[in-house]
């Protein structure tokens, strides 16, 4: 099976248009350039991209 890489695909909302991708493979929506943080905030957040600035919720799996 060819190694399918959705190169140059516009990032579409999660789940939308994902049907044509084979099952069993992980997919990451394609990032597009957007707003960036001011330098000091970016340095603290660890990213210049607000899109990638996720809160870190640690904890055990809740069964």
């Amino acid at each position: 099976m060819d190694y399918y890489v959705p190169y140059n695909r516009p990032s579409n909302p999660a789940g939308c248009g994902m049907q044509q991708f084979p099952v069993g493979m992980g997919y990451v929506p394609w990032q597009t350039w957007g707003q960036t943080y001011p330098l000091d905030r970016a340095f603290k957040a660890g990213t210049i991209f607000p899109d990638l600035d996720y809160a870190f919720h640690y904890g055990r799996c809740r069964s």
Partner: protein
Amino acid sequence: MNQTPNNLSCHSLLNQVYQTGFAVDDAILFLDTHPSDPAALAYYHQAHALYNNAVQAYEMQCGPLFMTDVNDRNYWTWINDPWPWEGGCV
């Protein structure tokens, strides 16, 4: 580590180097996968210029930041800062 006024501004000047350098690194990561993105390229060049200015500003006041940036022809100024074991880590 004594915080003389001059030393303190070296700390903030170095912080500028860190912040601008970080922005350059993050832009590079994006450009690796989006090599023709105009906005990303513009951001990279802007951040890179800010980084160069920050390094220059730091070095003018606080001495060489990299071993390859020693300009003094009479003395190896790289050793002027306190060594790490002398509390030199900023």
